[in-house]
C-alpha cells in the first residue's frame, strides 16, 4: 500500500475500533424485549349457562356468561362479518391491565374463558399488525 493509503487505513481502523463497539453496545440498552407470545386460549366449544349481559355492537354480539356456581366467566362473541384487518385480537382491559384472550377470524361463534374476577370488562378488538384498536365495547 502507498503511504497515503496506509495512513487512511490506519485512520479508518482507529475510527472503527471505537465506533463499532460503541454502535454495537448502543443497540443493547434499547434492545426490544423478546416477543412474548401471550397464551391465547382456544375458543371453548360450549356456552356457560348463565347469561349476565349482552350487547349488540354492529358486526358483533357480545355476551358475558358465567358458570352455575359463578366461579368462572366466559366471553361469547358472535362475529357476523369479518374485520377488514389482517389480525383481530380480542383483549380484555380491566383495572388498567390489558390481556389478550383470543383471536377472531371467520364469521361465527367464539367463546373465550375470562380471567377470574372479570366483572365489567372493556373488550377491545385490536389489529396487532398495525398496532391500532379496531373496536371497543364496554360490557
Amino acid at each position, binding site marked *: 500500500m502507498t503511504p497515503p493509503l496506509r495512513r487512511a487505513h490506519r485512520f479508518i481502523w482507529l475510527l472503527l475500533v471505537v465506533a463499532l463497539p460503541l454502535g454495537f453496545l448502543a*443497540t443493547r440498552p434499547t434492545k426490544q424485549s*423478546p416477543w412474548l407470545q401471550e397464551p391465547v386460549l382456544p375458543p371453548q366449544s360450549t356456552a356457560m349457562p348463565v347469561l349476565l349481559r349482552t350487547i349488540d355492537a354492529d358486526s358483533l354480539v357480545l355476551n358475558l356468561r358465567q358458570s352455575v356456581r359463578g366461579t368462572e366467566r366466559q366471553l361469547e362473541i358472535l362475529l357476523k362479518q369479518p374485520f377488514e384487518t389482517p389480525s383481530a385480537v380480542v383483549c380484555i382491559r380491566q383495572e388498567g391491565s390489558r390481556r389478550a384472550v383470543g383471536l377472531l377470524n371467520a364469521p361465527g361463534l367464539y367463546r373465550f374463558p375470562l380471567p377470574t374476577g372479570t366483572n365489567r370488562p372493556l373488550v377491545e378488538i385490536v389489529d396487532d399488525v398495525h398496532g391500532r384498536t379496531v373496536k371497543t365495547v364496554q360490557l
Partner: protein
Amino acid sequence: MALHYSPVLWNRQKRLYDLTMAGLMALYLIIFCTLQTSLFPPITTETIVIRATSTLAFLMLHVILVIGPLCRLDNRFLPLLYNRRHLGVSMFIVAAVHSVFSVLQFHTRGDVDPLVSLFTSERQYGSFGQFPFQPLGFFALLILFVMAATSHDFWLKNLSPRVWKTLHMSVYLAYALIVMHVALGILQQETSPVYAGLMGVGVLTVSGLHVMAAFIGNRRELHPNAPATDGFVAVCDVNDIADNRAKTLMVNGQNIALFKYDGKLSAVSNLCRHQNGPLGEGKIIDGCITCPWHGYQYLPENGQSPPPFTEKIETYAVRCVGTTVWVNPQPYPPGTPQTPALLKVTTINDEN
C-alpha cells in the same frame, strides 16, 4: 505477472487454495444444516438456507479481514493472502444467496414491490436502537457486489492500483454496515448472550488486529532523519539486513525497499506494480525481488520484471560506507538500472 488477461490464471497453489476453501465452506454448510434440522425440527428449507448462508458469509468476512493484518504481523500467514480475492468473491456469492432467500421469504408475498418492502417494512429510521436493519444489509451487499465485479486484474490495471485499492478499502464500510445489520437484526431477537458475545469477539479481533498491524508495521519501517550528505541519507547498518531480505524505509515521503543479496545492496520502490504490495516484506527468489502478495518479480538492479514481463518499478541509488548504508531518496524512473552497492569498506571520498 501477466502478458494478457484471461479469466483466471490457474496454478497449483490457486487450485489448492480454492479446493480447501470450497471444502471448508461445504463442511460448514453440512454441519450447520444438520444441526439446524435436528435442533429445530419444524424449520423450513428457506430458513435453513437464510441462516446457514448468513453465518457463513459473516464468518468468511471475518477471515478475509484478518488475513491482511496477520500477514503484516507474521509472514507465515502469507499463503492465505495469495488468493484472497477468490475468498472475497465466494463470500459475496454466499451473501447474495442469503439476500435472495431473505427477500423471497420476507418480501415477495405481499402486494408491495419486494425492494420497496425491504425499505419500508420497518419505519423507525429516526431511532438508533431500532433502526431498520435490512437496508444496512442491502447497501453492504451493493458494496460487496462492486468489489466482486472489479476483483479481476483487468480492473486493477485499468483503474490503477491506487484507485483499485481505495475502492476495495470500502470493504471496511461494508463490514461496519454488516455488523450493525446483525446487531439491529437477529441479535435484537436473540435472548442468549452467546451470539452477541461471539460477534463482540469477532469485531474486537478484526479491529484490534488491524490497529496492531498498523502500528507495529509503522514501527518496523526505518524513518531516518539524519541530514543528507551529497543527496544521500544514512539509513541503517548493513548487518541490520538479512541476506536475500530487505529493510523498508520511509525517506522524504519515499517508500523504499533496500535489499541485500549476493554481497550487494539495491534499493527499489516498496510498492509492487500489481497491487501496491509491500515488496520489502518479500524476498529474493531466483535472483529476483518477489512480492509476498502474488509473486510478481523484479530484478533488484533495475526494477524491471524479467522478460517476457513488462512491469517496472522506481529504483534508488545506494552506497555502503563502512557498514553504514546510504540511500539517495530521489527516485529514478521505473526500470532505470542502478549499480548495486558492494559490501566492502569504502568512503564517500573513494566513490567520488
